[in-house]
């Protein structure tokens, strides 16, 4: 499909700028000419061209509204439309972040109560809403821990992270100046307790644990893990990206976690917008509260205000207060479901994952054969051995059947990983149709491997050349309009 630049024609336009109702001053008469630009080299298209361009692009994109999206670790549950409508109310979209508190009581109340709800759901003392995404929340959470030790005058230089962890965990640890030490997983997919005990020394700030972990498994030895980490004065950090597994069933705070980051765009059903905006609130236990980012919202009587006076805070991780408009959707979601709805969401998310696991078990190698939580992880090993069909081929073949594939090749400790997260919003028919398709592909792999390897056949483009993209990078169009 043509680029918008290739559709550009000199003299066209999709808008007109209002005439000025104030005296015209030429910029050049005030700003030195050599600080001004000639003209902007942007495309010139009519409104109809613009709309058709992006309408056509949208037709070449796949979202949850289009079909089943079992992308593991991403919790692609259905995004209720009412949340969209509410988030588009001018009362929420049109307010300047520096509006006086008198003007922003609605927004402040919403953020304040969101903090309270999240604290209750996850059993933490308080939450900070500033981080813009999960990884941003991880960074903030680790910074909070770092600040704690700094205040205590303790030097701790290492952070422990299981080998199964998501890439953002080690990256976040490193971005906080910590040396990342990897903890092995044990035979049943949990933390290798002995290895943890061995590694957990006084120079270790803490353990970043994803629970349920990236294998979709709940850490059975969580009490031991917490005990070990805490006994050496470390903090137990929870990557809450998988929080959809346990709402209303258990609470990280109760389990011994000192810090947790959430992904509102996963657990709380805010749409992911092709990769953002997200929102990554950070929850902490009592003794870490003083270190959360500034500003904090305080409630005085019935009214809310900002508090910038937090001397022990890590400071800021971004400007303003966070992705407010995403919080609006999460808040609406929490109020819609209520405590029983959130519980049922987690219960059915787990039930659906186990259903898919049971149905596919005979046809694909199950990485760990035990009850899973909200997602299940298979390996494509059998297919590779039998017919040289790789997980990537299976994923591409799913495209021909109208599905978004599961997450693949993650977690890295599972070879040829296929990570399936069905979510609670999908019906039995949808799950069955997907499982039938996965089984059909398993047969195709046996009987007609080349078909699977040549997939996709029905998409607007065939399989794309990633190597060329990386070898001869072209990230900005160089042509002339």
């Amino acid at each position, binding site marked *: 499909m043509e680029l918008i630049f290739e559709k550009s024609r000199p003299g066209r336009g999709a808008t007109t700028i209002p005439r000025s109702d104030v005296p015209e001053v030429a910029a050049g008469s005030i700003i030195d000419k050599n600080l001004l630009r000639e003209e902007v080299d942007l495309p010139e298209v009519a409104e109809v061209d613009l709309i058709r361009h992006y309408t056509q692009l949208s037709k070449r994109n796949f*979202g949850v509204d289009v079909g089943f999206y079992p992308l593991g670790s991403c919790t692609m549950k259905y995004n209720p439309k009412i949340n969209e409508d509410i988030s588009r109310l001018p009362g929420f979209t049109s*307010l300047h972040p520096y509006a006086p508190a008198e003007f922003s009581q609605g927004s402040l109340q919403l953020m304040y109560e969101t903090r309270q709800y999240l604290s209750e*759901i996850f059993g933490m003392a308080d939450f900070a809403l500033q981080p813009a995404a999960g990884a941003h929340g991880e960074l903030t959470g680790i910074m909070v821990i770092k600040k704690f030790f700094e205040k205590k005058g303790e030097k701790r230089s290492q952070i422990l992270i299981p080998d199964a962890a998501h890439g953002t965990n080690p990256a976040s640890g490193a971005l906080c100046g910590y040396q990342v030490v990897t903890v092995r997983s044990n035979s049943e997919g949990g933390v290798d307790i002995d290895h943890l005990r061995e590694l957990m020394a006084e120079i270790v700030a803490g353990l970043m644990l994803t629970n349920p972990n990236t294998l979709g498994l709940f*850490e059975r030895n969580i009490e031991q893990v917490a005990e070990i980490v805490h006994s050496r004065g470390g903090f137990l950090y929870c990557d809450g990206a998988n929080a959809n597994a346990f709402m209303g069933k258990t609470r990280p705070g109760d*389990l011994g976690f000192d810090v947790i980051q959430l*992904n509102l765009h996963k657990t709380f059903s805010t749409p992911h917008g092709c990769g953002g905006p997200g929102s990554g609130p950070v929850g902490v236990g009592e003794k870490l509260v003083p270190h959360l980012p500034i500003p904090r919202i305080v409630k005085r009587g019935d009214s809310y205000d900002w508090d910038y006076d937090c001397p022990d805070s890590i400071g800021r991780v971004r*400007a303003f207060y966070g992705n407010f408009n995403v919080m609006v959707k999460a808040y609406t979601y929490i109020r819609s479901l209520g405590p029983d709805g959130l519980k049922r969401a987690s219960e059915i998310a787990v039930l659906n994952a186990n259903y898919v696991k049971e149905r596919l078990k005979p046809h694909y190698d199950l990485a760990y054969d035990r009850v899973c939580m909200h997602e299940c992880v298979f390996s494509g090993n059998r297919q590779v051995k039998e017919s040289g069909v790789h997980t990537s081929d299976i994923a591409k073949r799913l495209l021909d059947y109208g599905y978004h594939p599961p997450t693949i090749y993650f977690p890295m400790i599972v070879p040829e990983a296929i990570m399936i997260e069905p979510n609670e919003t999908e019906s039995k028919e949808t799950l069955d149709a997907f499982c039938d398709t996965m089984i059909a592909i398993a047969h195709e792999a046996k009987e007609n491997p080349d078909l699977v390897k040549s997939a996709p056949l029905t998409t607007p*483009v065939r399989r794309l050349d990633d190597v060329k993209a990386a070898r001869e990078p072209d990230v900005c169009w160089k042509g002339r309009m």
Partner: protein
Amino acid sequence: MDYVPHTPEDQKKIMETVGIRTIDDLFTDIPEKYKLKNLLDLPSALSEQDVSALMKGIGNRNTIPPITLMGAGAYYHYIPAVVGHVISRSEFYTAYTPYQAEISQGILQAIYEYQTMIAKLTGMQVANASMYDGASAMAEAAVLAAKTLNRTRIVVIRSVHPEYRQVVKTYAWANGYEVIETPYEKSGRMNRDALLEAVDDRTAAVLLQSPNFFGIVEDIASIASDVHAKGALLVSGFTEATSLGILKPAGDMGADFVVGEGQAFGNPMNFGGPYLGIFAGTDKFLRKIPGRLAGATVDREGKRGFVLTLQTREQHIRREKATSNICSNEALCALAAGVYLVCLGKNLKKLAELNFQKAHYLKETLSGLTGWESVFSAPVYNEFVMRCPDPKTVNQKLENAGIIGGYELGKDYPDLKECLLFCATEMMTKDDIDRVVSIIMGS
């Protein structure tokens, strides 16, 4: 209203297949004593109609002003209707990061086009698919510079947005880097000598904004070569994205990175977010730049297509060795910005000129008030600083009229007590300005 489709029969059948009698059979891995026995203490579920009424009520507790004199990092601009229509296409907003390129050509091409337009506007060869916001983009640029150069010092001019400097400090602190702030001179522009003095062989990056926090246009070229001479990198930011419509691209004046807040490009103020961090750099940094990059390639039949590329830079491959930990970014905001730029096209310059004119008319008008004076002499874009008698009262008067006043600089700049930072965009009419004046004059 939960959104679970299962009927009791569905659930029964599924549980049979799974081989459990009760749902709790699935949660046996949770230590018994940590299982919640009671429901969470939250307001009970609401129907869509009720939640809609509740949320409208909360929204109405906000006051949307007819006039806003506040800029300071978030800007009130007209958003063309097409922007909302495009980003409301559910194929876009309900999709995840485009890991599966063949069914994500829509967003991948749109982001490739966005990257291209950002590169053109900033005078850079490379732009990424967005960072969280302008402040974190600047901080990541500083960290990237330090990591690549193996240096530990960040020099930032005090005329950079106060919150941006706070973010830079937080990121620097976490990495054990030192941040040095250098002053601006009377004109409001950077103090060149003080700056260059601060730059030494430990210095990884110099951070500035143009327009800076005072709305002032900096002469970036005047320091670029000296900064480079010391082996440091020049990170040029901006407060107001629409200024790119008339200002010479920092890339053409020697900047190594251009970072800034892209909200002004078609994104509403949203009480502070979501926004998008613009991040652009020279070719040199193509394989170092943080965040997602959409790149062009071909499919098996030689047809042009797009993918997420150079992923070896990123955390999911590099893990602790990645320069950044960013994963999700602000894709939908970047899409909005892209649509906005396509819609404005060459008119972006006209729009910037209009902003310039409105701001200068407001500046002139306010300068005419007794006791009011413009603080800085250097040229500005659409923001400027005024010293006036009792800024708090001025803002209070405006607030009483439902108007958001200027930014009180005293809290960040002791030397600028009595000073307000004002902004005027294309949304401000001459009548608005007259009204503002009469309110300020009124007792």
